[in-house]
């Protein structure tokens, strides 16, 4: 599934909910189902700066595609990380670098994209794209 297709799938899921509570509950559920990051990667250098909660993000290149694993100590933040991992993981560095990620706006999470927002959705996206740039430069 392409990045755009996953984005479309997520947008349709969120459209099923009429109010913010449903959307947040869905986000929380996604957080709970985020695949576990290997505890050995939950180190200081894997923490994404700029989040009020702690977010660990690890990536590795496998057969030309980047696999992201992540965790957070706050469940809503974890839901946001889970969304980003679901969309971007298992794609090539080029695909990740070029992803526009319009779905964030469509599912009503735009307010979390403001640079002053302390949950760091923007920081997560930046870090994931930065990792992709690093892998691309090594190829």
């Amino acid at each position, binding site marked *: 599934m392409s990045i755009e297709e996953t984005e479309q799938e997520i947008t349709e899921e969120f459209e099923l909910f009429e109010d*913010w*509570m449903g959307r*947040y*509950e869905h986000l*929380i559920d996604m957080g709970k189902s985020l695949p576990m990051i290997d505890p050995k990667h939950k180190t200081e250098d894997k923490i994404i700066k700029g989040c*009020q*909660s*702690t977010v660990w993000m690890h990536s590795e290149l496998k057969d030309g595609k980047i696999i992201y694993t992540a965790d957070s*100590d*706050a*469940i*809503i*933040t974890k839901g946001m990380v889970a969304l980003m991992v679901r969309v971007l993981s298992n794609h090539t560095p080029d695909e990740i670098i070029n992803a526009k990620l319009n779905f964030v706006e469509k599912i009503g999470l735009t307010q979390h994209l403001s640079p002053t927002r*302390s*949950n760091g959705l923007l920081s997560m996206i930046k870090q994931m794209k930065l990792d992709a740039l690093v892998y691309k430069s090594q190829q």
Partner: protein
Amino acid sequence: MLPTKSMSAGTFPIQKIRADFPILSRKVNGKPLIYFDNGATAQKPQAVINAITHYYTHQNANIHRGVHTLSQELTVVYENARATIQKHINAKNPHEIIFTKGTTDSINLVATSFGKKFISEGDEIIVSAMEHHSNILPWQQLCIEKGATLKVIPINESGELMLDEYKNLLTDNTKLVAITHISNVLGTINPLEQIIEWAHSRNIPVLVDGAQAVPHTIVDVQKLDADFYCFSSHKLFGPTGVGILYGKEKYLNAMPPYQVGGGTIKTVSFDKTEYADLPLKFEAGTPHIEGAIGLAAAINYINEIGLSAISQYENELLEYATRALNKIEGVKIIGTSKNKASVISFVVEAIHNFDIGTILDQLGIAVRTGHHCTQPLMQCYQIQGTVRASFAFYNTTEEIDFFIEALLKAISMLK
């Protein structure tokens, strides 16, 4: 359900007061705003907004140097604002009131200027474990620069200073004690009289961070015998960007200027500059004129209601909210001193404060989450952060009911 009913007990004119604050009628995320982040900044009454509008509409000029009518009229207004503040905190002289950018700026002024003159290698400065970063970092930096040592008064489990430990920290090398009046996280009201008396018995001056105290309680700097007292306008229902440093004349006169430039001088030549007397010595550049005028308007406004009535009403809110929070399973209040202002910090078992804050925001409730610029205090309690609800006199018990209901909803969603 909506937060407009007056308190059933007491005669506090809550409906009239709420009508004075236009922002309280707006909605957030489709819900009536419940503003419980007063510890961060307070909302502004119409009287303050009007004073600032009036200033820009009818009074604007530069002060202290013009011969023309506008300048002279405005200089009088500005100096009257200083006198209003002097009277409000009962300072002996108007020139002991220095306009700054805020509490942080006031503390930095003292750390830099007092530090330059009075701190040297081997000296000690005392702060407490419950200080805001703004009352730690200027002293930490000064100690690094001068080779001095920062000592810390510990707190007990309830969030109160351990006074015996404080007494032991006072030595012949202690040159200053810098202490908060009211903790921005714990709400603890510190026993300043005792703290200052012990320091003064060794001729040690005391700086008080009053940022959280001035909105809630009457401050009398002469009765306290504080040597420096710092606060911000914006937490006192006035505009942002302006604050006050009160300092005893004897210290302010002995201290060198902090920033220099226009307004701070008597005469300037390339060989020698003679600096102005207090307070202008410490007010470089064109000051925050609208800020001073707005702050004076805010002080006049709260004095019309009366700070003792405000304190009493806020205590009722504090007790009401404390009782309600204590009934919720998994909620732990951080800061349980008997002597508290209307600030409640709490943690919820196994739920991150950020998640709680996010859900409450969706319900129109503004609280603060995180470490509140007190990371050393968070380390004392071994927590990452708290949720903090801080009340002002325009809040109501109905709002607290709504907040508790919202908190229960958040907990059930996040469990």
